[in-house]
């Protein structure tokens, strides 16, 4: 069955902003789909609100709508574009939900749009628990006993029937938001009530617990001719009870016999047929009782998923690409296997290595959040590592995480082994209640003398895995005795020990270990990921390192450049950097270079073997990068695009004789080093807030006193405002200094004068060393002091005077030239009155590069990569800034809903996981769109609750008046309401918590309030307003926590209420830019 010729135009829905549970894996799947479908000659229309994605690059689709992904907006796009079909299975849960809703509303029928991949009925059957259960029973498969309930009482009743613990899952939510495990009736009451609140249909599923059962996933593909293949099996290291996104997982399944595996395979095939996913990939989860093998089907995703991305990277089989082709009518046997070229895609990959995925959590960003891992996903990213053994892959994965751990312990960051024996009780408790450190505590448990059975009893982690951990622990003892003996060294490398670990055990440094092992011929070899375990010749150079007899690399004689990627997604370093790396790869290819990509994040487009000429799926540590350099001998390495991860390696790589392309490490250091930087600004006669550095509490006090409070304190060399705080007095300063040492790793702490009520401006520019051109100037909506990564911003600036903007540009270009920037530079300014201060200079790709590129149509990352190869900007045709006549607003998305107990106010520490872009003719509408896209749409009628800090009261009056004029009812607490009444604005007074009932929280719970404007007096649970904000999050009431945000919202509402939303593709916008 060849491809369909009755369709011409295909609409693809992306997954929107990066949130916990839905990350850049959908950029990977969506990009693959766009590419695959355009290759087939279809016209591809894409909608995605996330500007940081590669898929929204104007070259990826015929028309790209960076618009909110809501049924209303997508309907407008459908009306405008009239696509023949819509492919909803590649945009995560967002894509699927939007498609389902469009079907329910009759939009698809109205415009004659057919769903391909999965029909509405299949989506519903897989997503609706009751239907799914019935379907499974229909084919003789077991599911956990469960019941849907709409009330806490009904939940308790059913729990009594099946016994505790029970699992609570809210219907129709992402990543298990609002769910949990209840071990008793009290917990159930709380979790059920929370779950009901989270479910858009106020329904939860109460389910028999299979906690501790073995957990598996199968990635299944099916075509129109009903051919079904399994791409990959995944076994969870962490058994049932922890969300699979928060579990360490391993591919392929390790502890199943063929009989058991085939039984699961048979079941998976029956599931996909019964659910009726016509074409494409699905993910099916199973639980197996380790005592007797009883198997239940846990759930099914009728779409590509996070696990599909992992499975694609783990096997080399491009699930999303093939899924897209199957959706347009191809059958699996008609498509070639990319990797072998000669064999068809209709087969089941087999692998000859072990793959380990470990999630990356960022709890340090959310003090107060519960670190326990449960059925609700909390991780923000993940890494994958490939090794020939589980032990090797596990240790590689741990060092890939970039949390300053270089393997499973013995890297100088451990608890002291001697005291461990005494701490046995504490260790037992730690492994019983899983949190991100559990893997290290398993090691301690062995060291403390626990045996496999005891640890199994605490964790239910399969004994096979525990045995492997034990082997690592035991080998460590052997290694400790004789770390540099060649035979032992070699074995250590085969166990996945890093040079850093060995160096620690040997009391020497990483590079000495490296030199010693190279002297003894112990060097990494690289093997191919080829889908077929070596049975056929493979043509796709996708490599991983190991210590074996044979190396399979084929270094070419071409000119080649290595790009170091960004590693795992985390807050502060996410998809934006992957976008830059991928753009750089495209640019280098255009210039005729061979591109070698190094990265360890399986969710990304950069780790698609199609992106570069060669892919090394490796940790981004000095050791691993040098190993690749040894083999490939690249002409240069690009570090600028991967965020802080590769930059940290700059000096060390240069010292080892690796050529760093672009801005020199010395220049980078000049911008990072406080003293050199101050000198630089003095030389250029530019201003920065008064500042100093300090390594001790005393020094810090002295500095702060001399520049005056409040001060902004932070460690040097960190990204994403890690541990950054505004400090108002000496006491807080001292306590900060004590905790900051940990985040700073020996670098000094930076202390800046904090500029209050200053406007922050972000500028991206590009330079070839001679010429510099502004990429874009972004005015932040929130004042300086809120991390730039958490601020909304507008391009072009919406309120700054023209002269001020011009001056900022002048200073930017001056700095770019002075620093000898070759590539990109990002500068953050603060404008206070007529004064312009420079807050920070980053001579590298910034988080805003993709946003600026989408806003202006100038592919900055691509141009920067070419500049690094020696092209000049005039040669590349970029001689002046392109300022669009429309407005683009970037808004951020915050993960507070996942972290009960964490206050939601913004500060200098970045906490957002993703971003969206609103684009329109004027600021108001662009802002309004950005709010809709971010999932916190501004209400156009109803009641607004106002409660602001005293300092903001003056600014509140015009906002309140504006809202009142737009027809909103206003509610305010005592002080604020008196102020408004005094200004003649009608307002209803409400009680604060503790003043009487009903109070503000009651009103929120009762649904009386549609929008809250609350600027905080303080942060954290000691304040009443914390309760207010928490309740607002739970009840999905939008909260604006800054006055500037409120002003922008008012402007947005004015436009939004006057005119409806219109949609336009960025290709059309870009055509306007001169």
């Amino acid at each position, binding site marked *: 069955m060849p491809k369909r010729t009755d369709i011409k135009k295909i609409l693809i829905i992306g997954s929107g902003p990066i949130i916990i549970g839905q990350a850049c894996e959908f950029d990977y799947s969506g990009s693959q789909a766009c590419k695959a479908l355009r290759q087939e000659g279809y016209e591809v229309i894409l909608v995605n609100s996330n500007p940081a994605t590669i898929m929204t690059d104007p070259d990826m689709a015929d028309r790209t709508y960076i618009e909110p992904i809501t049924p209303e907006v997508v309907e407008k796009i459908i009306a405008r574009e009239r696509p023949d079909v819509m492919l909803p299975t590649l945009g995560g849960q967002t894509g699927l939900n939007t498609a389902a809703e469009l079907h329910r509303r009759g939009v698809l029928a109205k415009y004659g749009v057919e769903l391909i991949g999965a029909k509405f009925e299949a989506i519903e059957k897989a997503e609706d628990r009751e239907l799914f259960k019935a379907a499974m029973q229909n084919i003789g498969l077991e599911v956990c006993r469960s019941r849907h309930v709409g009330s806490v009482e009904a939940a308790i009743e059913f729990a009594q029937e099946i016994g505790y613990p029970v699992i609570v899952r809210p219907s129709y939510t992402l990543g298990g938001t609002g769910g949990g495990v209840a071990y008793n009736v009290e917990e159930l009451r709380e979790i059920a009530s929370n779950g009901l609140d989270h479910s858009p249909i106020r329904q939860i599923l109460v389910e028999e617990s299979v906690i501790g059962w073995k957990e598996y996933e199968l990635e299944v593909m099916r075509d129109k001719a009903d051919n079904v293949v399994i791409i990959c099996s995944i076994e969870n290291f962490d058994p049932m009870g922890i969300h699979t996104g928060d579990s360490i997982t391993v591919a392929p399944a390790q502890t199943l016999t063929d*009989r058991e595996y085939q039984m699961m395979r048979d079941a998976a095939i029956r599931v996909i047929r019964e659910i009726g996913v016509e074409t494409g990939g699905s993910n099916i989860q199973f639980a197996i009782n380790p005592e007797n093998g009883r198997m239940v089907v846990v759930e099914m995703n009728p779409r590509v998923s996070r696990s599909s991305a992992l499975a694609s990277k783990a096997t080399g089989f491009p699930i999303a690409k093939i899924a897209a082709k199957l959706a347009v009518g191809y059958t699996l046997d008609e498509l070639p296997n990319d990797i072998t070229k000669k064999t068809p895609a209709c087969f089941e990959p087999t692998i000859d290595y072990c793959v380990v995925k470990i999630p990356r959590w960022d709890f340090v960003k959310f003090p107060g959040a519960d670190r326990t891992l449960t059925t609700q996903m909390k991780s923000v990213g993940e890494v994958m590592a490939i090794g020939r053994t*589980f032990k090797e892959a596990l240790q590689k994965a741990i060092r890939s995480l970039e949390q300053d751990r270089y393997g499973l312990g013995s890297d100088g960051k451990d608890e002291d082994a001697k005291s461990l024996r005494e701490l046995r009780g504490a260790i037992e408790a730690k492994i019983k209640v899983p949190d991100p450190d559990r893997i290290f505590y398993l090691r301690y448990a062995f060291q403390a003398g626990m045996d496999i059975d005891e640890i199994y009893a605490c964790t239910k982690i399969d004994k096979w895995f525990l*045995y492997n951990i034990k082997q690592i622990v035991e080998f460590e003892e052997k290694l400790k005795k004789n770390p540099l003996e060649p035979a032992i060294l070699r074995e250590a490398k085969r166990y996945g020990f890093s040079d850093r670990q060995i160096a620690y055990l040997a009391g020497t440094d990483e590079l000495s270990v490296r030199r010693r092992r190279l002297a003894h011929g112990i060097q990494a070899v690289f093997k191919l990921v080829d889908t077929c*375990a070596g*049975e056929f010749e493979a043509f796709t150079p996708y490599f991983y390192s190991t210590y074996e007899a044979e190396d399979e690399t084929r270094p070419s004689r071409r000119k080649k450049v290595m790009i170091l990627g960004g590693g795992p997604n985390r807050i502060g370093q996410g998809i934006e950097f992957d976008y830059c790396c991928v753009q750089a790869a495209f640019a280098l290819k255009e210039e005729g270079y061979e591109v070698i990509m190094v990265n360890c994040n399986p969710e990304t487009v950069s780790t698609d073997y199609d992106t570069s000429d060669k892919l090394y799926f490796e940790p981004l540590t000095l050791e691993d990068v040098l190993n690749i350099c040894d083999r490939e001998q690249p002409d240069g390495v690009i570090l600028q695009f991967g965020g802080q991860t590769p930059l940290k390696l700059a000096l060390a790589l240069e010292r080892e004789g690796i050529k760093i392309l672009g801005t020199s490490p010395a220049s980078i250091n000049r911008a990072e080093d406080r003293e050199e930087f101050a000198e630089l600004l003095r030389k250029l006669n530019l201003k920065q807030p008064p500042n100093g550095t300090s390594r001790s509490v005393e020094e810090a006090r002295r500095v702060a006193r001399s520049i005056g409070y409040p001060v902004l304190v932070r460690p040097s060399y960190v990204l994403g405002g890690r541990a950054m705080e505004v400090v108002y007095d000496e006491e807080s300063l001292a306590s900060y200094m004590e905790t900051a040492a940990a985040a700073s790793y020996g670098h000094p702490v930076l202390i800046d004068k904090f500029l209050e009520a200053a406007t922050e401006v972000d500028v991206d520019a590009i330079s070839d060393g001679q010429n510099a051109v502004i990429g874009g100037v972004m005015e932040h909506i929130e004042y300086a002091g809120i991390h730039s990564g958490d601020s909304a911003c507008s391009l072009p600036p919406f309120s700054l005077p023209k002269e001020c903007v011009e001056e900022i540009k002048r200073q930017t270009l001056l700095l770019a030239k002075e620093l000898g920037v070759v590539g990109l530079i990002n500068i953050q300014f603060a404008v206070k009155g007529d004064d312009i201060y420079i807050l920070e200079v980053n001579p590298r790709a910034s988080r805003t590069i993709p946003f600026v590129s989408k806003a202006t149509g100038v592919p900055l990352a691509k141009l920067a990569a070419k500049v690094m190869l020696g092209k000049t900007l005039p040669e590349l045709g970029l001689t002046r800034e392109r300022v669009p006549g429309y407005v683009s607003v970037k808004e951020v998305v915050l993960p507070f809903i996942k972290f009960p107990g964490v206050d939601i106010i913004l500060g200098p520490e970045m906490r957002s996981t993703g971003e969206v872009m609103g684009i329109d003719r004027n600021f108001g509408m662009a802002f309004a769109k950005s709010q809709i896209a971010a999932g916190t749409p501004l209400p156009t009628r109803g009641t607004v609750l106002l409660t602001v800090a005293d300092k903001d009261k003056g600014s509140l009056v015009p906002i309140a008046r504006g809202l009142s004029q737009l027809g909103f009812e206003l509610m305010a607490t005592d002080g604020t309401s008196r102020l408004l009444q005094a200004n003649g604005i009608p307002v209803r007074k409400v009680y604060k918590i503790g003043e009487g009932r009903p109070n503000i929280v009651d009103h929120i719970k009762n649904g009386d309030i549609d929008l809250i404007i609350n600027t905080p007096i303080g942060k954290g649970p000691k304040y009443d307003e914390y309760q207010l904000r928490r309740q607002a999050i739970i009840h999905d009431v939008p909260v604006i926590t800054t006055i500037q945000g409120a002003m922008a919202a008012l402007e947005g509402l004015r436009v939004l209420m006057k005119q409806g939303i219109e949609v336009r593709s960025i290709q059309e916008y870009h055509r306007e830019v001169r």
Partner: protein
Amino acid sequence: MKALLVLEDGFTLEGEAFCGRGEVFGEVVFNTSLTGYQEIITDPSYKGQIVTLTYPLIGNYGINFDDSESERLQAEALIIREYSPFPHNWRATTTLKEFLESHNTMGIEGIDTRALTRHIREAGAMKGVISTEDLDPLSLVQKARAHPGLVGRDMVQYVTCKESYVWNERLERAQDGGCGGEYDDDGYGAGRFHGAVSTGSRNDDGGEGRRHHKRQYKVVAMDFGIKRNILKMLERAGCHITVVPAYTRAEEILALDPDGIFLSNGPGDPAGLPTIIGEVRKLLGKRPIFGICLGHQLLGLALGFKTYKLKFGHHGGNHPVKNLITGKVEITAQNHGFCVDLSERVTGTPGGVPAPAFNDLKVTHINLNDNTLEGMEVPSLRLLSVQYHPEASPGPHDSWYLFESFTRMMDDFAGERDMKRLSQNRNQDQDMEEKGAKSASSKAGVEV
């Protein structure tokens, strides 16, 4: 203990023997299945071969009572990357190492099995030796070359049963020492492991058209090294099976008056079995015949075609095979080093029996990886055979339907035979009426 693996072309790798010692010879082949090492090493088709498993972590789930494909360990030796001495699985009863030891079989680990696989892929399957005694590669190359190898040799003699027997799975299990629970491995019972459910009550609800058969088919299975799961699948398809030794004469088989004849899998080169080919030729057309793997190759030879050796064979559980009748693709288990070549028929008379005449051979299955022949059918001879392993074990269950095809073929045959009998009886009646009573008790239906 240090062990050297040396191939006849001099390719050498060093590893550690995790069990056994000494010197072992065989053809070195690789299997790409991710699971199923127990089934693989007990599969009689691996007689004469040293098996490399491409999946590096082996031994993880131990060894259990149920999953062996014969009562012996058949592979000459096992080559892996890492042995796991600590298995964990609720069915495991012993470790792989103990199992290998109890059968005096050597296992070596620490080998760069991927390098070995790539070498075999490029240079072809070849003879090799593993030694823990002689660690001189040059001497070992000489020894490997001197080893007779598989081509042209009769390996079946080492694995076929000595006497014929009636297959009874329950009995078989009891003899094995049995396992407490009854394992419902049809995959369609929602994966339950039943505590005490008898074989008879299996939940064969027929996902792929498998139904409970009232009818018992009398099947004679020629044992060239038959895998247990084939017998189990036949039994489940409603067959009552008499297993006969490989060298049983056609006349003896036909004397058992079976409804159908099954030709099993087995080791080695089919061309090294001229006597058997002659007997098979005599069976063609007499009864419905179903052949798997070596059985398929023998049918090919009996039909007058040739076989050839594949460069490195097909050994794994992920080969796509297209069913040319339905157009669907099956993911199949494969284990063969030789292949039937349909391009020309030769007119030799192995065993002194001429090849039968037919003109309706259909290629029913082909391998999508290399387009080699995977299945054929000769309706006029009621012959059906596949090169791959529909019984899986290890491998996917996509092709279980073939056992159904076999029983259908037997149904048709029986139906026709009944019709023939009927009409013969009618003729006889007429004869009797016309010519008076005369004995006409000749067995009908032998010639078709």
